[in-house]
């Protein structure tokens, strides 16, 4: 265990932490503003990676895949937030989406039950779908949604439901192969300093996280929207009182969170791979970042990510038998002592 060992392990831990920052900061902001524990966040990460793969397959451009994937997932985030996590507005669209989903399922069920009846034909399948969807739409329109804005548990469970749907959706769209995002050749090399190899990609991840962190910080500190977000994190009721449109803030933050998670997915895709199940692997780690760093705090997320990255890395390198325990036990202790995390505000 010479210096070289410690240097490279610390470097590895920091670069892993950089990736975790991308995932964790979005989750942390969403929590801070909306008090929602978003269990779909891992799915955003995964979908970011898959969409990037599709973009690369279509255009061959890795650089293009990052913004496209991030924006696409941000749109998914907005749709989820507007249609399902907020109870007001978009009733028609929400009922429409759910109705369509139900319609497809009814059609699938009919196909499974009476294959001779509508077997194979897309037209028949479509007809059954449309009829069922319309029926479902009208049935749903008669039922008023029970708002979930103030119900922590129902929000969590709703995001779990979506996490399952996203997981199966990704499997059906992109298949179950273990895939990998290949970054440009420049990033596949290594930088050698003092006989130690520093993989360029890990350096890139650190640089990206620092850059994004800086931009986020500027947005939070210098823009009106940033100020509104900070005010809402501090005290949502007060923020509403002074005329901040917290509704818009929450939409912005949800989109931003999804955006960041997707960037994490593209970046992480070249480092962890993209495969089914990645979503639920990343989720607890993102939570560890948020919990340790403190909910709703950007600086906290950075420190939490660094702490988790290093703890995970050194835990696995030095105490493999209890490596996961060493990750989650500090989480428990921090929560028990300071429920809002190290840098979180009540």
């Amino acid at each position, binding site marked *: 265990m010479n210096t*070289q*060992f410690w240097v*490279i*392990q610390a470097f*590895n*831990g920091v*670069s*892993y932490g950089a990736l975790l920052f991308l995932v964790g900061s979005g989750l942390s902001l969403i929590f801070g503003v909306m008090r929602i524990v978003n269990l779909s966040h891992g799915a955003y990460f995964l979908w970011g990676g898959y969409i990037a793969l599709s973009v690369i397959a279509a255009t061959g451009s890795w650089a293009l895949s990052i913004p496209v994937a991030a924006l696409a997932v941000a749109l998914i985030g907005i749709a989820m937030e507007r249609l399902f996590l907020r109870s007001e507005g978009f009733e028609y669209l929400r009922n429409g989406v759910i109705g369509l989903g139900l319609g497809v399922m009814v059609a699938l069920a009919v196909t499974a039950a009476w294959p001779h009846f509508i077997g194979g034909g897309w037209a028949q399948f479509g007809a059954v779908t449309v009829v069922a969807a319309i029926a479902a739409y009208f049935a749903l329109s008669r039922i008023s949604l029970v708002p979930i804005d103030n119900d922590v548990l129902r929000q969590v469970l709703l995001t779990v439901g979506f996490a399952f749907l996203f997981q*199966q959706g990704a*499997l059906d769209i992109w*298949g*179950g*192969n*273990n*895939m*990998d995002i*290949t970054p440009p050749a420049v990033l*596949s*090399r*290594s930088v*050698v300093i003092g006989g130690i*190899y520093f*993989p*360029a*990609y*890990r350096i890139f991840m650190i640089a990206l996280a620092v850059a994004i962190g800086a931009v986020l910080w500027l947005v939070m500190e210098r823009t009106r929207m940033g100020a509104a977000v900070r005010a809402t994190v501090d005290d949502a009721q007060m923020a509403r009182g002074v005329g901040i449109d917290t509704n818009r803030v929450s939409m912005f933050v949800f989109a931003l969170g999804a955006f960041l998670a997707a960037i994490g997915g593209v970046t992480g895709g070249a*480092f*962890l*791979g993209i*495969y*089914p*199940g*990645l979503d639920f*692997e990343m989720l607890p780690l993102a939570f560890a970042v948020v919990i340790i760093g403190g909910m709703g705090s950007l600086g906290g997320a950075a420190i939490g990510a660094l702490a988790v990255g290093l703890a*995970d*890395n*050194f*835990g*696995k*390198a030095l105490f*493999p038998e209890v*490596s996961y325990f060493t990750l989650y036990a500090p989480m428990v202790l921090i929560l028990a002592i300071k429920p809002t995390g190290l840098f979180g505000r009540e």
Partner: protein
Amino acid sequence: MTSRLPRKLNPLLLGSALALGLSLASNAQAEELRIGFIAPVTGIFAQIGKDMTDGFQLYLDQHGGKLGGADVKFIVEDDQGKPDTGVIKAKKLILQDKVNMFIGGLLASTGYALAPVSTAEKTLYISSISSADDLTQRQLDKYPYFARTSWTSSQPEQPLGQWACDQGYKKVVTIAADYAFGYESVGGFQKVFEDCGGKVIQKIWPPLGTKDFGPYIPNIKADADAIFSLMVGPMALQFPKQLRAAGIKKPITAGGTSYDEFVLPFMGDEVIGDVSALHYSAAIETPANEAFVKAYRTKYGKVPSYYSENNYTTAMWLDEAMKQAGGKYPGPEKFIKIMEGIKLDAPRGPVRMDDMRNPIENVYIKKVEKKKMFGYDKAELWNTVIKTYPAVSQFWTYGKEKFLKQPVYSRDFPACKYCE
């Protein structure tokens, strides 16, 4: 009374009515060969499950849906990649669908979980992927209705140990997924390699599912001549990439799943030259294999993995056995007897069963190369066979008696004598 039924009761009543309905629905099927197939159709292993199913289905389709003259009812059940779900699905197949046999199971732990079901329900279970060593070794007596058409985990790694020794490697570091499959693979490699005079000087066990090898790679001892790796699934893609990026250029000899055709198409050029061992390679240059690869690729758009081949061969085995049984399923004991007597010329090469119902088959030492094969016009990564160990048994050259006296390969056996 019924009209005044309490409202809160309705869901419960509905439930029991449903249960009743289900019970009536499970009527007997018509006379035919009913085969249950257990594979992950959803969840994180879904694609492997698809490869498995596709391999079997391809053979069925090529033979008009019949095996040995009998119409086949092929029922795929989704175990979601979980052993306990596999058990319940096996029971569903046996109890409700009244299958003659069930096939499949991906993970070693699924194999260990399904074998007892075959004993309890007196139904034939053919393990077509799951490779847990002991099922056809020290524990075979417990499972009279069990046979295997695939491999044991240590079966290809034992010749690989010999091959590594023959290359002149003296010191090897092993890095393998921390679960039974990893233990058995490393154990087989280490035993033979050390019996030949080599030394395993370090064993690293990253947990199953590791993708960031950052904590482990810097630990690899600098004085090793080569690295033995055993990766599965997403791990396989990341390990060689991160190893090379960390500046370690040592040769890799690996367990089969680290480079098999399931992961190979998604790998980068840094894996060219890496060596692995398995009982199948899609690049075996025989007419039987070429035909299989082409048929499979035409139908499913991808090169078959060993998951596909093993199930294709399983179907071929059943076909032959049913032929010999005269097209009528003769019951598990008799059927296993027939299967034991069959010699096949499969895509993977000649294969037959030893007296512990595990295949004796070729083991291929393969090197990743980028080239064109079988007339495909694009240069791709292929597992070129560089050496064939013919007719390898699960006991390698040790002989059954001697082999079975040692404990099953594990994290601690063989002990790491040269680790400090």
